[in-house]
């Protein structure tokens, strides 16, 4: 009986909430939010006509690309590889969401931060490379190599930033399972509010948590390749970089994958650094509203950065990430070891 319940929960979590359907919806809504906000920053209207205030525009784009447009095969292309790679990326992101408390079926293990890193960070990166290489083209190779170069500094930053709250919790609260995504999401609100450790320690904890959040946001910006880090798809230089040869349904899945990456990384920030729906429960009205408000705040910060900057050169981008994100997050990690 309990196996049937477990399978039921698994199907629910995988396909409905927060599985494929919900993630699909949330990520496309996030894309609408980004487009609308950037448009207003640039004194334009943004999506307006499809659905109320243009909310359904990304959905219309997706379905048009999938159902109406056709993909163009090239002499050296392999559409199956592109779809498989995009599917693996989407699957890894969907399955990775089950590590968080948002999911009805939660998968927890000690030290599952490592599973988080590989599922949510490394597999999407590899699937990006493989999807692009499926349609070979010199511009694609140029875009992919820039993406790889950027990932070399982004991935360690994300890991170091995520390790900061986990390390603090592991050292301070021994009743919590160490380095687990689920337990950290539940316990991180104690880090923000627990003043009983002494004034100095509390202030330093706040500082390093804020530094880690800032480093994580910069790294997220680079990972989802929004300005100022959208170098791999730089127009004028590389036609469209790694996305040069995408068309039709392939492009639909690729954009879906891209939006899902943004949504999942924002959810990760909200849960791992800000505590999710704290101080409320998940199922209460206050909890849901807090969750949505935190999500929108982080999405707004990312969008504001996207709208305010131009595009960096690749070496500028790498040095700036090293200077403003990687080094601060390492320092925060080292301080979290001694505080």
């Amino acid at each position, binding site marked *: 009986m309990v196996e049937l*319940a477990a399978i039921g*929960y*698994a199907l629910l979590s*995988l*396909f409905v909430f927060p*599985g*494929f359907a919900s993630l699909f919806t949330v990520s496309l809504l996030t894309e609408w939010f980004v487009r609308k906000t950037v448009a207003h920053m640039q004194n334009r209207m943004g999506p307006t006509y499809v659905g109320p205030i243009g909310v359904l525009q990304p959905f219309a784009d997706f379905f048009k690309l*999938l159902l109406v447009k*056709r*993909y*163009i*095969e*090239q*002499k050296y292309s392999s*559409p199956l590889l592109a*779809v*498989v790679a*995009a*599917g*693996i990326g*989407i*699957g*890894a992101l*969907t*399955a990775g969401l089950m590590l968080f*408390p948002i*999911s*009805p*079926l*939660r*998968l*927890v*293990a000690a*030290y*599952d931060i*490592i*599973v988080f890193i590989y*599922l949510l960070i490394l*597999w999407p990166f590899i699937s990006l490379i493989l999807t692009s290489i499926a349609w*070979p*083209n*010199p*511009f694609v*190779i*140029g875009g992919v*190599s*820039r993406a790889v*170069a950027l990932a070399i500094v982004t991935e360690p930053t994300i890991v170091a930033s995520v390790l900061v709250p986990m390390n603090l919790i592991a050292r301070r609260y021994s009743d919590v399972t160490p380095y687990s995504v*689920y337990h950290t999401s539940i316990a991180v609100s104690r880090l923000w509010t627990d003043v009983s450790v002494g004034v100095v320690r509390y202030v330093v904890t706040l500082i390093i948590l804020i530094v880690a959040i800032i480093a994580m946001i910069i790294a997220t910006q680079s990972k989802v390749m929004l300005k100022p880090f959208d170098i791999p798809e730089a127009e004028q230089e590389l*036609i469209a970089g790694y996305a040069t*040869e995408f*068309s*039709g*349904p*392939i492009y639909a*899945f690729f954009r879906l994958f891209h939006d899902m990456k943004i949504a999942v990384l924002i959810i990760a920030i909200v849960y791992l650094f800000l505590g999710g729906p704290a101080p409320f429960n*998940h199922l209460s009205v206050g909890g849901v509203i807090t969750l949505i408000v935190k999500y929108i705040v982080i999405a707004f910060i990312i969008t504001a950065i996207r709208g305010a900057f131009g595009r960096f050169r*690749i*070496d500028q981008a*790498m040095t700036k990430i090293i200077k403003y994100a990687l080094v601060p997050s390492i320092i925060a990690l080292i301080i979290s070891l001694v505080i």
Partner: protein
Amino acid sequence: MALTLILDPISLLLLSSLFTAIVLVLVIVMFRAAGKKEERVTEDTIVMYIGGEHESILSLRFPSSDALYWAVLKRVFKGVYRYLVNAMHTGHTLDWLKYMSMWYGFLMVLAILITLFAIVYGWR
């Protein structure tokens, strides 16, 4: 209300790989059901898009595997590579010996220090 499964890491990984594979199958099914290939096959749709040039231009210049990263890395990791390539991995055996004997010297210094401590403090 929610079901929390506490697993060991291997089961967790195999389970999440299984879920990834299920969503992958879903994506492939969506693609196969809805995705259509461009039927009209003309010359300009089956070649690569190289900014409108013909493909034979590629025989002239091709991004070598060096060009992929070297231009970027040279600027960013300049100091690291200058030391690694020019000072350490020169290919001269004598340079190797310098580094190898540093490690060997460390071990020997350790041995000598322990000997001295043994003589002085009478470790037996």
